[in-house]
């Protein structure tokens, strides 16, 4: 009796699983692709300058390199509308709690680009008493852009890599 019930429940679960798969292939995947396709061409970075790499971000946003071609434009409005942090260089002990706070305030899905040697490992300032040795201790990082400072082209390549990552993101809701 019990075994039969279990078998029945088993077939029911298999059926549910099949329907789930069909729904996933028919609706879920195209929907996920569509949503991520929309996200990857409209990345809005937070205006958070942490150190000197902000000059190269300024140059990249300027009329010569123009990262707006890749759909990236600095959002000067609310943090809630942003989905990308470009950590522009050194993060000091005073700024680190602020960086965490800003990351926590942003809505999902959100991505982080660590720009410059300082935000990856501490860079030139690895032995300074006031500098964090890499930001990945406090927030998760998606793309590392090495350089001191990275050229504007390197930042653009980092953004393209992030777009590739978003396109292949397996879920709809981010992480």
């Amino acid at each position, binding site marked *: 009796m019990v075994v039969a019930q279990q078998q029945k429940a088993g077939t029911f679960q298999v059926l549910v699983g099949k329907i789930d798969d069909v729904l996933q292939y028919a609706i879920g995947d195209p929907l996920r692709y569509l949503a991520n396709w929309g996200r990857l061409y409209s990345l809005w970075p937070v*205006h*958070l*300058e942490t150190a000197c790499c902000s*000059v190269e971000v300024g140059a990249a946003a*300027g009329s010569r390199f123009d990262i707006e071609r890749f759909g990236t434009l600095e959002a000067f409005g609310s943090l809630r509308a942003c989905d990308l942090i470009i950590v522009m260089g050194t993060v000091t002990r005073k700024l680190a709690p602020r960086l965490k706070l800003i990351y926590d305030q942003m809505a999902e899905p959100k991505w982080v680009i660590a720009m410059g040697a300082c935000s990856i490992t501490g860079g030139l300032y690895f032995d300074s008493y006031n500098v964090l040795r890499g930001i990945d201790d406090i927030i998760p990082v998606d793309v590392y852009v090495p350089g001191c400072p990275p050229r504007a082209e390197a930042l653009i390549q980092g953004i393209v890599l992030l777009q590739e990552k978003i396109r292949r993101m397996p879920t709809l809701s981010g992480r």
Partner: protein
Amino acid sequence: MRMTLESEYSPDADRIMAVSLGPQHPGAGHFRIRLWLDGDYVVKALPDAGYVHRGEEKMGEYRNYTQNVPHLERPVILDSSNILFAYSLGVDELMNSKVPPRAQYLRVIMSEINRIISHMYFIAIQGLFLGHTTMITWCMGDRDFWIDLGERIAGARVTFAYIIPGGVRNDIPEFAIEKGLKTCDWFEKRMGEYEKIFYDNPMVHQRSDGVGVLSRDDAIAFGATGTVARASGLALDVRKDEPYSSYSDFEFKTPVLTQGDSWARAYVALLDMRESVKIIRQALKGLPQGPVRLKLGPQPRVPAGEVYSRTEAARGEMSYHIVSDGSPRPYRLKIGVPSAKNLRALPHLLKNVHIADIPVIYWSLNYWPVEADR
């Protein structure tokens, strides 16, 4: 300084609102201003610097004189040659080394190129804060031509690390001289266009005339330097007052304005760039022949002693106090940066102004937080 709102403004504390501007704010990057507001007016403003303090001076004590070069230019990445110029002058004086004339000219060329790069960024962001999008688009694009010229001479994009103790790192390539003269000609015409579209613009005049006026006496009292002092009628210019390197060979003027407002502080930068172009052209045309670098070895020995050296950087007077005890490393390295000197005027300038004027006044001081925090 610990201060509470109640103790400061007890009579009408319910009128006054305390607001924090920054560090994540489009009007103030890596920098925070604590504001006390009465409606649309600022009652009191306290700058909160130190978000980019990286301990440059302490780091300088456990690196030798050659290793100090790359990290000392990072604080002023916009103006990287001028901060190294002061350091190199100081070390040269300590070591009693005579820098070859060609190296002196190349140092001047590079530091003037960097002054233009820095002022272009300054004007671009000033235009952005005034809502003048043309200025940031033009200046950010035109700035790259000067960066390209610097790249052709030194090899790196913004951190040139070109001026080092004992001369410059490498000789100028022949095509860069030609390219430099062409860039000078083009840029002089271009500056006329800036004047037409930005400085003579009635909108820019309305937004920045009489905003954040720093009188001559106040400029002296707060110890302002550079563009801020020159806009307030103080003819301060280390290149003229105490000619270092080969600045006495060139003909140039020190632009001085008397209005002392945000417009004048932005306009002084343009006049400065005109003079820089003149100096670059004279130096490129009269470049002497000879070596460009003294052989110091990887770990130069510096005799014991102390030195105070100063240069005119883009933002004002850049100074170094280097104490040596005869070892390969400096015993003490003190950097005096112009941004920190000009920041003292900010609380005074932000009294009784509209909230909308805060970014304009803040940026017109030509303040670069990374430099001020060191």
